[in-house]
């Protein structure tokens, strides 16, 4: 009887606060474990820095010779740098689904799933750890950009906004990846579908060329692609020479809304991983 009335009564303020604190602890637990793993073996961060370097040095230098690619007042390398930053974040985040399948096959995921932590706390924890990874990735691209003489905006406030955008984008795409993992469940299938999805997300966006030069149908696809809004906002805040086309408010709203929807879907779907 006592327990029944307790369950029925609305939670007091203190109870509510302690619940929020508990939830935050659980999200932090998942993210912190991930960060500790990265600290034990940071080699992955270095190897992941190679790809953006190649894009900027090889692809960027060559494509800079093509007239009409650059938009705004900067040159093409300037235009490309935020796109490559977003790309490196996207590729790192998409890896999260495979990591989840790997943890599932090992049994590590079961430990999370039998804990009293709400499913959404586990999904958010993974998103936060992806954000941390994305941020360390961003530092590398920033350094590279400065070395290459790209017009990086170092007004102290702007890198903070960039960091927030990177965190949001990482969370978004890692959660998307988690949903795919919940559907395909095996590494082999994920490898296949991961490639099929990442390339269109990357190419059907404004990451490496302006949307204006796209045919109409592709333009429509790009406008439905969250990466476009991520890159758009990054351009405005990473560089001194570019501006946002859709408005930073729209960009953030799109990214946030998509992330919320994806987290909700992943929360519903993740119990499938351990059945």
């Amino acid at each position, binding site marked *: 009887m006592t327990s029944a009335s307790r369950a029925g009564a609305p939670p007091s303020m203190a109870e509510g606060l302690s619940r929020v604190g508990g939830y935050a602890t659980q999200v*932090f637990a998942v993210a*912190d474990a991930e960060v500790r793993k990265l600290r034990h073996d940071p080699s992955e961060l270095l190897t992941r820095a190679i790809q953006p370097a190649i894009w900027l040095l090889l692809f960027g230098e060559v494509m800079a010779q093509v007239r009409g690619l650059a938009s705004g007042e900067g040159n093409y390398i300037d235009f490309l740098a935020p796109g490559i930053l977003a790309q490196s974040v996207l590729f790192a985040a998409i890896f999260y689904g495979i990591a989840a399948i790997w943890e599932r096959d090992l*049994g590590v995921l079961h430990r999370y799933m039998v804990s*009293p932590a709400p499913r959404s706390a586990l999904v958010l924890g993974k998103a936060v750890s992806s954000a941390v990874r994305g941020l360390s990735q961003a530092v590398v691209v920033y350094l590279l950009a400065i070395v290459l003489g790209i017009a990086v905006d170092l007004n102290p406030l702007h890198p903070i906004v960039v960091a927030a955008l990177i965190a949001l984008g990482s969370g978004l795409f890692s959660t998307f990846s988690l949903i795919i993992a919940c559907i395909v469940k095996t590494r082999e299938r994920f490898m296949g579908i991961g490639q099929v999805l990442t390339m269109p997300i990357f190419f059907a966006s404004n990451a490496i060329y302006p949307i204006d030069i796209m045919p109409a149908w592709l333009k429509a696809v790009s406008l439905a692609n969250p990466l476009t809004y991520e890159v758009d906002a990054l351009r405005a805040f990473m560089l001194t020479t570019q501006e946002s086309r859709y408005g930073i408010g729209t960009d953030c709203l799109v990214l946030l809304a998509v992330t919320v929807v994806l987290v909700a879907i992943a929360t519903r779907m993740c119990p499938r991983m*351990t059945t």
Partner: protein
Amino acid sequence: MTNAADGPAGPLQIETRGLAKVFDGRTVVDHVDLAVRSGEIFGLIGPNGAGKSTLIKMLTTLLPPSAGEARVAGYDLRTRPQAVRARIGYVPQLLSADGALTGYENLLLSARLYLIPRAERLPRIREALAMTGLEAAADRLAQHYSGGMLRRLEIAQSTLHRPALLIMDEPTVGLDPVARDMVWDHVRDLRRRYGTTILITTHVMEEADALCDRVGILHGGRLEKVGTPAALKAEIGPDATLDDVFAAIAGHDKETEGDLHDVRLARRSAAEHG
């Protein structure tokens, strides 16, 4: 089953009625009535494919039942899964410790997930490390642990929050006899210190005999028999072993089903624990 909404329901830690799981028309767990008493070590025995793992997945809330009802650690499995999860510990057959984290970090992760108050985290982790003999290895990555050390770490992780019920799926698979004995001692120690109720699955009859107060024999998804190892053996004959009891129930089809995926996982898990 009582009507009291929640809270520990008397002396039973697990109480199922007609619990069943059907996959694609195939009944894997067939209307099981299981009662595990507070403070006992109960062994579910049966060959691969008998339905042990599926039953365990239902009891740990990982898999929703197709039919039947169950209370685990005092709460209804269907309506209060989160309350059940907060009160049980689960050591899966697969490797659940994270090899890329140290022993200490693995324990810290569990302490946080189970919301052990901050002030108690460190004392409990220290106590768990001492109890499992892992103090010296606490700051080493778990991937460098031996199979027995990993198992003890996993048990420590699953019991930091002092669960009323600890469920272990094949706890000693792939371990050498010395490591296996240490795990057994640790399991008995948990019951003695904290009164933890323990449910294990095993297909090693020796383990059931040595460790369990009572065993239930699962065959083809049905719980065929329940009793103390001694009583079950006495039913067959004076010199009977649990193997004989099992053979009398299961006949010769000791191995029924399972698939490549299960085999691959079991072998990988055995290799990692070996």
